[in-house]
């Protein structure tokens, strides 16, 4: 961060811009969530806005935009790859069943009690 010394004051302007962008982003998230665009579209939009906000925080506030250290980037790159693995492979795996596997709500059974089990009842 040797170069950061000189242009710290220039950063300040960027910080305020990012601050504005984050507030706009938050508002946008809320607005978009309250418009029904279909489940998938809403989901994708919300995640995209969150990702954009997250990128701004990481790039500007956390100075990644100015980070030149290969050690940091390699560590974060590895982390990003493994994060992707962690987010995708388990959910892919639990959705790859051999044919005929029953994994709906009733699971092991054909039917479940109609009433909720949360009501307390004495005895066993």
């Amino acid at each position, binding site marked *: 961060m040797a170069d950061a010394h000189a242009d710290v004051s220039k950063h300040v302007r960027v910080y305020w811009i990012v601050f504005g962008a984050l507030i706009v982003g938050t508002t946008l998230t809320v607005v978009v969530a309250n418009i029904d665009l279909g489940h998938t579209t809403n989901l994708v939009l919300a995640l995209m806005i969150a990702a954009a906000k997250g990128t701004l925080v990481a790039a500007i506030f956390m100075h990644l935009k100015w980070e030149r250290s290969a050690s940091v980037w390699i560590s974060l790159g590895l982390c990003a790859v493994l994060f992707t693995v962690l987010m995708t492979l388990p959910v892919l795996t639990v959705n*790859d069943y051999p044919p005929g596997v029953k994994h709906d709500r009733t*699971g092991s059974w054909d039917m479940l009690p109609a009433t909720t089990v949360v009501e307390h009842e004495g005895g066993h």
Partner: protein
Amino acid sequence: MSGEHHKELGFFRKYVFSVDHKVIGIQYGITALCFLFFGFCLIMMIRWQLAYPGEPMPLIGGLLERLMGAKWAEEFMPGGRMTPDFYNALGAMHGTIMIFLGVVPLLVGAFGNYVMPLQIGAPDMAFPKINMASYWCFAAGGVIMLSSFLVPGGAANSGWTSYPPLSAIAQPPAAGWPILFSGQTLWLVGMVALITSSLLGSVNFIVTIIQLRVKGLTMFRLPFFVWAQFVTSFLLLLAFPPLEAAGVLQLMDRVAGTSFFLPEGLVVSGQVAMVQGREIAGGGNPLLWQHLFWFLAHPEVYVLILPAMGIVAEIIANNTRKPLWGYRALVYSTVFLGFMSFIVWAHHMFMTGMGTSISAFFATTTMIISIPSVIILTALIISLYNGAIRFTTPMLFALAFLPMFAIGGLTGLPLGLPVSDIPLHDTYYVIGHFHYVVAPGTILAIFGGIYYWFPKITGRKMNDTLGRLHFVFTFICMNVVFMPMFFQGLAGVSRRLFDQTQYSWGAAVQGWTITSSWGAWMLGVAQIFFFINFFWSIWGGKKVSNNPWEATTIEWSAPSPPPHGNFATEPVVYRGPYEYSVPGMSKDFFPQTAVTEA
């Protein structure tokens, strides 16, 4: 930071709450050796039950009753006979203690802490206080784990894998005891402490290796042991958090009544949707735990083996008096191995109802990961070629590591292919396989490492005769213990059986079980040589020079034992790590820090 220290440190600051990597390394080493021995004692008790099911345990039964009290004995070993609950608890705690409290702290905490900074010429670890925090987290985790033997219901007994729903429904806290005081809950709390310790340690290791290498020590001049520690630290850093998350989720299931791992329609012992006397909502997925658990636990296997390979590589290079063969191939294989170990985990879950495409994916990655292992082993064996092999005590252990790891690695193949895994999954074959990797593999390497670096730590050498006796008996007994397990496994005997003679295939191979048990007890007896040698040598061993093995790596240019700050003057490195038998030189080793031969 360490800048605050003064010349005169009190006893506590110097030996107990020390920030010196060498003291912390020794603390880790002693603590972990104690845990290793404790975990071994647990399995020696288990071996009695396996060999002679239902027979009262001679001597130990009465001894434990004296030691722990009649009430304890009544609950866990009535009449000297082990109860199935206690058997399961011993099994689960043996696994946990050996892996998380024994081998990993020894390899990473002890050898890594002591040797790695010396090998890169650093005065200390990058964050000495975090280093200390890491040790004390580990110690706290260990104490929590051990204390679980004393709560009613005993220590965690759902296997070291703690698969829910079993682990979620097991061991409800006894009436009148706080909710955290049940074996499985304490296990989870202890694991969280151990994971924190590992995370602190791994950050420290990576930063130290990246930042504190001395001048001239480029990454490809690092001793292979440092590379192994480097990759291992990344594994610990990135693989452990998911288990921490899983541990927190299971803790919530046990303490806060959530059902992350509990599906709807659960009927435990005839009670619908009741867990630990509490109604649950259900809707969770038991396989979620297995994914998060194995996301850690497969890389953990490499955490157990990579530093051991590092130790073996150091000893082999030193005792063949020639450079390691294919140093770069070794490094690349290690890095590749580390990365691949993150995407093979579901081969532990082939039997959970997995479709063809995902099982084919994981089988393929598993086969791919076997290639770098083969490369590493081959490189180490070829390193012997054209050498001048000195059969020193550490070298004996390092040499024995090679065939033992070969057996362990090769027997992984039938388990990695889904079809051959069907009959072998969860049998003794699996136990044989990973014990060959970890016990005759890693533990032999650990012994080798202790014999090798003992002169650096104490300035004295361990006795060779006792060392050789220790080696011969350990080596034989290890094989007597674990070789029969392959036959048991092929015969179809499931693991974790309290009494395998219930099954006809188990009864048929009971003779092998007895052989294995006797091997285990003999193995225990053989360690007497080590104990005597170890403690006697600390005070009475032969005094040796700073570089008794005539080694090239930097740690041998420091005084033995190294003072605070390690090196009188900061060393400078001029060459690679294994410059042995350089032609035209009078001596057969050329230290990394030496400017010229003189």
